[in-house]
Every structure is written in C-alpha cells, then in structure tokens.
C-alpha cells in the first residue's frame, strides 16, 4: 500500500539525443529525450536573458488499451504544459540566454501515473544532457482506492469513486512543482494523500540518482553503495 510499483530507469538510451532516459514504472514504458541548449527557431521566440524550455508529452498509438489517434489530444496539450511547468523550477535557464531546450516525452506503453513517470524520466534526461539544475525533479502520485489513501495507483485501481493526485517535488529544495487532483478527498484525506505522494517522490528520487550514478560511475558506484 505504501510501496512503489517496480521502477527502472536507464540513462542514455537515445543515441542522437543530447540526453535521454527510459523509464519503466509499473507497466509504463516511457522514453524521454532532450535536445539543447540549442538555437531557437523561429528566432523571435528567443529570450535575451534566459533559455526557452519546450516540452512535448505524446502517446504512441499502440500505447493504450484502445488505439490512440496520433494527433495530439487536448489531454496531451495540457500534460505537456504542466510537465514543462513542473520541470522549469529545477533548471537554471538563466545560464543559457537566447537558447532553447527541448524535452520530448514519448509514452510507448501507458499505465497509471504516466505523467509522473514522464517527469521523472525527463528530469534524468535533462541531467544526462548536462543542463545546469538546482535539483532533480522527482514525481509520484498518491490517491484514494476504496476510501483508503494509497501510494502510486496503477491503471486498474484508478476507477470511479477514487481519487488521483500526481505530484512533482524537488526534494533538496522542498518545493512542489506539480500538484493535480482528480476525485474527492476530505480535508484529512487531502493532507494524508499529499504527504504520501511526497514520500513516493523521495523514493523515486533515490532511483533517479542511482540511475545517473550507474551511467556515469558504473559498477564502481554500485560496489561502493553495497559496502556502505
């Protein structure tokens, strides 16, 4: 009930990208790739004192139970926006004036919590691209199932009468950068649910750090950690 589904992050899976990560979060399979900092096209979109962050969240047609039309849905437009807004506070965009950073998140197989998994992967991909960051953005949902507050709801649990609360969080800075709620919670349940989501974010944060360490320091790190 207070456990995450299995989470596995692989760093650097897209050869051409400046940074990338592949996350398996329960049955979610999500790819994040980062290009940039790079020139902005069209040029008038550039900002003189900082970097433009652009973000696309997209589901492959085969990622869902019923085939998804490839054109971007209103849901994908909204998630692209909240995802960008969840990532932006972690980035030192002022370090790259007149440039753009593009974050592409592709859901290859979807399960509950795909926006949180996508944010977690995107954050690792940004780090892999060498972008200056204040912290990694961890993300996890909590929710209500059968009147109980539980961590990390999957597809089959997310049904009528329940509630779903995706959260993104900067653990070192103690800042929440994404908070949404779908479904009914009493005031007490709200507080419990938010706390539980934050605790999930902290677990995801450890997995994110480990994945980056694994790529950049390899077995050396793993051995060190084991001996600690």
């Amino acid at each position, binding site marked *: 009930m207070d456990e995450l589904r299995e989470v596995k992050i692989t760093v650097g899976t897209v050869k051409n990208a400046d940074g990338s990560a592949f996350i398996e979060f329960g049955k979610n399979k999500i790819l994040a790739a980062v290009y940039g900092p790079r020139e902005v096209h069209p040029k008038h979109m550039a900002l003189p004192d900082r970097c433009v962050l*652009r973000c696309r969240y997209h589901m492959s047609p085969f990622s869902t139970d019923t085939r998804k039309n490839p054109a971007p849905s*209103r849901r994908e437009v909204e998630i692209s926006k*909240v995802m960008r807004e969840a990532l932006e506070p972690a980035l030192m965009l002022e370090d790259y004036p007149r440039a753009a950073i593009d974050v592409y998140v592709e859901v290859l197989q979807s399960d509950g919590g795909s926006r949180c998994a996508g944010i977690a992967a995107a954050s690792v991909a940004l780090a892999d691209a060498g972008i200056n960051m204040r912290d990694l953005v961890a993300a996890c949902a909590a929710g209500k199932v059968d009147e109980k507050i539980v961590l990390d709801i999957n597809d089959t649990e997310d049904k009528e009468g329940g509630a779903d609360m995706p959260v993104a969080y900067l653990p070192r800075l103690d800042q*929440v950068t*994404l*908070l949404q*709620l779908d479904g009914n919670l009493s*005031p007490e349940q709200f507080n419990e649910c938010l706390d539980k989501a934050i605790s999930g974010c902290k677990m995801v944060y450890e997995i994110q750090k480990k994945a980056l360490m694994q790529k950049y320091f390899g077995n050396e790190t793993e051995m060190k950690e084991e001996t600690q």
Partner: protein
Amino acid sequence: MSSSKRSPIIVEHLRKQAMWDALSRGKRLDGRDFGDQRPLEIEIDVIKKANGSARVKLGDSEVIAGIKIETGEPFEGLESKGALIVTAEVLPTASPHVEPGPPDEEVVELARVVDRGVRESEMVDLDQLALVPGKIVYTIFVDCSVINADGNLFDATSYATVAAILSARLPIFEMQDSKVVDTGQTKDMPLRTIPVSITAIRIGDSVLIDPTAEEEACMDARITIDTTPEGFCAIQKGFAGSFTIDQLKKAAETARIKGEAVRAKLRELTGKNG
C-alpha cells in the same frame, strides 16, 4: 508543444518591484487583503436560446456561459452515462493580447480545469442522463466565452459554468420508433452538489486569492482548488514555479472557507441546494 513565454525584462522587473513593495506591507495594489475576492456579480438566464446560461463579472473579468443540451453517443467506457463537455474560448474582445484562432495551451488548460471541477464533483448526476444506455445519451455542452480578461479566468469561468448548470432546464427527450423526439417539455437537471473554484497565486512569499491580470503578471506560481461542501474534488497547480507543502495546505484551507461564501451566493441566486 508546450513552450515558455515572457514579457520584456525591464518592464517585468519594475512591475514586480512595485508589487513586492506593496505586498511586503501586507497590501495589494488595489487595496485588498490577500484573502479577499473582488466583487462578484452573477446573472442567470441571459441567453434565451440556451438551455441554461449565466454571465459572471469577477472584478473586471467577464465570462458568459451557455448550455446546449442535445443527444448523442456516450463516451467510450462510460456507456450508461450522459456526456458533459465544457469548452472555453477567450474572445479576442477580451484583451489586446488575444489573437483569434484555435485555442492555445492556456485556453485548453482553462477549459480542462473548469471541466474537471464539474466532472469530479459529480455535480450533475450523469447516471440519470442515458436515454438508451450504450447507444443514445444526453449530451450537455457548456460553452464559455470570456468577454473581458482581467485575471483569474479560472474562477470566473468556473462560476459561469456552475451557475449556468444550476439555472438549466433539461429538455425531455423520448424515443419514438427508434428516433429521438424532443417532447418540448423540460424538467430539473439532476444535481448532486455545487463545486466552487478558488484560485490563489504566490508572489514571493505572499499567497493571494483571486489575482488581477496585473498580479498574475508578477506571479511565481498558481493553484486552483475546487471544493464541495465535503472537501476537495479537483486541483491544478499551474505556472512555472513552485509551492512549499505548507503553502499548499494553507491554500487548501483558504479554498474551503472562501468557497463556502461563493456557494452560498450560488444557492441563493438559483434556489438550488448542494
């Protein structure tokens, strides 16, 4: 694709400075306290051709919502429920910055957040709105037109939507020879509760509700919280900034208190409970 935008640096900087000065003295530029809402006017039945309608003025933000009720196919996976669709357009009349055209990501978010508040509160009992379950159901369109924009379109549009639903009459459709027939009669909408949206923004360390456009231009982060009498039903944190956990819990509490006042107003105006 979602992309971040911004105003000229100097302007932004000067504006923020003036705003911070005022807020540091505990006051807003228009004299309100942090927890004060602007004057709220709600008028219902403003569009006679609609099945329900409302005009809301929240400060200088003005929104009209109109409801059209038809029949159609149910949504996939929700075969025995009526369909409810909220749309929003910020008319180019609303400000010098709006361009006519398909909705951008901000307007998509606006419509989806307002929709979510109504949907998740289960305000309308959609279970009662299937004519032939799995085949033909009531389809309720709530279309919102923002006429003038001066900040906090989330709450203004939400109030217009909720007031229009509360004021609506449901046309009675019947099946005759496997065709839908409008009987010309109407009945009450099947309602369960009244959701109320309260939006707050953070500027520096100050959290204030019902922001003006001027305040939004200085905001660091935004949060929209929908409540029912029982608790919370929908939340959307927006804008590229963050809140502390503590700020969020306080904002949630404020949303409950301030929301109750708006709910009382809606009850009184429409004679509906919830």
